[in-house]
């Protein structure tokens, strides 16, 4: 007997309760907030600086690893894993406690790839190159030891899930983004937007209250979105669209947040590969 998928499942939405804050805006453990590539678009063999902003509410002082991956084949292996005599170009370091970030200089396309050349030689942009970032509490992720010992399995670098498999959720996080390669001159390449907060700093709120945080995002946008996150309280929306009018981000301080201190992070994504991030201290009375 076949019975179609669905049934009454969506009716269960009747049971869904309305959240006070959106879960994706609440940072509870070490979490990569953004990966800003500067510049977001490069020519082959050119490098870009990837700044990984990491929230660390538990004070873990995480180790960070950044690498690029040109996917090849149906299995999604990374071209870099096929390169011999060169390290998989994994750049490691630690999060800066002041900037909350780690910056790695990477070369998105170090060698010629026919599929990429096919696109960019005709004046197009190839944005299928991936950049990965891994942030782990010291000793939590095997990758760092493997890098030191030179025993990294190349397959692991094409699938962050494999790297996180035995890492507790509170001890590590991984993320990825795409990088754009073209043959455009610097003048015509896309650049990152600029994010300007329109609220007093440091941020303060009162338990049970909602503060509307105004932001201005400047740059070129195509369905751009602004994402708020925080380690204290949460936001009532997971994103707002960029537009001619300055959007507001409702920062909710719940009763249980009274007396807490943390940080607020705001990320803008212009929809064209460009990003910007702002972070600041925040407290709830």
């Amino acid at each position, binding site marked *: 007997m076949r019975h*179609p998928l669905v049934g009454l*499942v969506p009716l269960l939405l009747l049971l869904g309760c309305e959240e006070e804050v959106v879960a994706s805006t609440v940072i509870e453990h070490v979490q990569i907030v953004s990966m800003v590539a500067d510049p977001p678009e490069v020519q082959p063999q050119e490098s870009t600086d990837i700044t990984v902003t990491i929230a660390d509410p538990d004070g873990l002082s995480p180790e960070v690893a950044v690498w690029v991956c040109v996917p090849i084949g149906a299995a999604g292996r990374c071209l870099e894993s096929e390169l011999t005599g060169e390290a998989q170009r994994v750049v490691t370091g630690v999060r800066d406690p002041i900037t909350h970030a780690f910056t790695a200089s990477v070369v998105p396309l170090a060698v010629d790839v026919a599929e990429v050349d096919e696109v960019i030689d005709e004046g197009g942009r190839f944005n299928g190159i991936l950049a990965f970032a891994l942030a782990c509490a010291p000793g939590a992720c095997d990758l760092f030891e493997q890098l030191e010992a030179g025993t990294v399995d190349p397959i692991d670098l094409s699938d962050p899930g494999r790297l996180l498999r035995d890492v507790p959720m509170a001890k590590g996080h991984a993320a990825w983004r795409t990088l754009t390669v073209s043959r455009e001159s610097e003048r015509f390449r896309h650049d990152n937007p600029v994010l300007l907060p329109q609220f007093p700093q440091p941020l303060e709120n009162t338990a049970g209250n909602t503060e509307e945080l105004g932001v201005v995002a400047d740059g070129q946008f195509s369905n751009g979105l602004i994402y708020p996150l925080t380690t204290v309280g949460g936001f009532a929306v997971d994103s707002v669209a960029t537009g001619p009018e300055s959007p507001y981000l409702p920062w909710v301080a719940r009763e249980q947040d009274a007396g807490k201190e943390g940080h607020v992070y705001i990320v803008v994504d212009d929809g064209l590969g460009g990003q910007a991030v702002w972070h600041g201290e925040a407290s709830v009375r």
Partner: protein
Amino acid sequence: MAGLLSFSGPARAEELAKDVPPAAGPSLPVLVSLPALVTPDATAAWPEDGRLVALVSVEVADDGTVLSARPPDDLPAAFARPALDAALGARFQPALGPDGRPVDAAVQLQLVFDRDAPPPLSIQGRARASGSTVPLAALRVTATASDGTQVVATTDEDGTFAFAGLPDADWVLTARGPGLRPVETALSTRAGVVQEVDLPLVRDAGLGSADGVGAEIVVYEEDTRVEVTERPLDTELAMVLPGTNGDVVKVVQSLPGVARSPLGTGNLIIRGTAPEDSAGFLDGTPLPIVFHFGGLSTVLDGHSVAEVGYVPGNAGVRYGRFLGGLVDIRTRDSLAEHPRRSVSVDLYQAGAFIDTPLGDKQNTALTLSARRSYIDTVLQPAIDARDVPVQAPVYADVQARLLRVFDNGTRGELLLLASRDTFAYIGVEDGEEVPALDLTVSFWRLRSRILQPVGQAEHELSLAVGVDTEDFASFERDTANEQVASVSLRDEWRREGDPDQLGYRVGLDVWAGREVFVYDIESYGPFEAGATPFLAPAVYGELTARFGPLTATPGLRGDLAVYPYDAISGSLDPRLQTRWDIDETWAFIGASGTYSRLPAARQVMSSADGNPSLIAERSWQNSLGVQTRPTPSVLVELTGYANLLDRRIVGREDRFQFRTTPLFMTGPIDDGPYENDGTGTIFGGELFARVDRSRFTGWLAATVSRSRRVDRPGEAPSLFSYDQPVILTALGTTTLPRNWRLGSRLRLASGNPYTPVTQRFQDMESRVFVPVYGDVDSERLAMFFGIDLRVDKTWTFDHWRLTGSLDLQNISVRANEEVPAWNSTYTEFSPISGLPPIPVFGLKGEW
């Protein structure tokens, strides 16, 4: 005036006077009426020929009354009194004198006593069940006169009864029978007048025997099972059991071997196999689905169903093309003796049903049924109030059936069944509401079937045609469609075995048609489309031999699947069923056999990226059990089973499928090519203890089991998605006085396994979190616990009945975890709980 009148009773007064012309001049008195001539019993001194003539001298007054009567002096006393009573009670048209005026007259009345003459009818009537025309046979009707005289009659099979030769008196008729409320009616009998009586009696299952005390009437189902492991279910009982909203097939979920389906849906998870591994049949004709959306209701109206055959494993050779168990919905193959009509409404649906004989010969019956859900109208306001973009499911089904029984016992049937389910989930795109998800499942079947007795054998020939369609659309962009137009043919000969001769079953089971599919869902990979005819013939045969207490049924079934442009595959399945009746109360059963399912079109078609070299999936099923009936009303069965699956077709889980298992996919998917790489092991034990008393039916069903799968060689075994090691169901329903019924069901079941999320990584552009899964099916949802309650009350009126019901599921109000789910960041495990208790009120009128 004097004359002779002759009377030989028991004639009627009308007959006496009908030939008498009106008097014009002098005339004798004319007998108008005569009381019943009470015949002395046979112990009286009768003449040899049993006839005795008495001349009674009667003086008739001028008003026609009898002034005096005098029987002959030599008349024996046993005859004198009745003759005198009859004469004194006579009424005459008075004699007329010469002037035409009434005058007194003397006549001699000849009375003939006939020992063998039947007494005159005094009362005749019919006893029936109140609220219907159903006659009540073998009912005791007592007539009690004011002087305490009692006469008793018994109704025949038509419910009719008669009292003859009763003297004129006032009587009280009392009728009583088991399960019926006694009824009394008063009437008076007069000579020459037959009283007609209608006695409607109200059924009250809360009553015991006629005297209300002592003896039980044990009612248990006649063992009609055709398979050694079958558990047949009587539908009249099934419709009032708790926890199933009166659905006859959902009751199967309360039997051993059936795992609990999430969210109260009707999916049948039988002995550790997926719902799509089991099969549903309608009298042996395959059904594409058994339940409407969400499992709220079976696709066939329960009034049409005579029995639900549930076979958890080791089915006979008649059934094929599945790996698990089966449910065979068996329609009534006897004619309706009396029309049955019903109209019902409850929280979810409304329906109408009629089953009526046609014509004068009483050999044809027509059944019509239609049902439509309106849960959408019930729930939609609640949905809209919560601003949830869901349109509740809508389903409907219709049936029409013509059944004819010929003189030689052949039964011919023409059946039409159609069903349609729709569901929509509304989203917003570009500011406009569009169907984010639109799902429709529909099918129809037109079947002709002949059951012909041939000597001691029976020949079954059935032909069914139909179309099954499944449509899915998302935002009017992504679409998927599957359509199968098919013909099913079954030609079977069978005979039951007995100690003197072998039984057998041989048959041809053909399924053929054309399948078309289109999958255009971007997130599920490239566009797919295909169309192929298919032919799946099967032949089967089995013998049933009895060697004293041992009955053995070896059989063999061969199946073929032909996709003309792509692949041909086949299977051969030997099966053996045995039963050893140790004595009248104990029996052992054992069965072993293989069951095959041939690849589906999409899995073998080269044009659909299939694998033409796929062969049939196989299940080797084994059962061993003991059965005992310590008393006629108690049945206990203990069964162990071991099933091995091999050649399971795995792969391409990245493709869109209309499927059930699991309700939500968790864990990594297998997107490799289709291969027969999968295996599985299923072990378990079942305990079934059932009690059937006159006022109570209940059972305890317990199952322990373990079901595992290995998808690819070298992989570690994982649990079946609905593996539930422990399932316990206790169910009982009791009838109370005044047609109340109360039932309850308690269920305890292990939670389903799921693959936990141990980590997550994130796309920094879409901000979507992607889960990282731990060991497959290494966690389990919390144990399920629920109590359901059902109350019924029937009011019986003279010509119809009204039944009200209240079905409450999960009155324990426990928030059982039904489906694993996480928040959007996967940091919090938030399983979806079942619906809160929803009282389902229902009303059904029958006449």
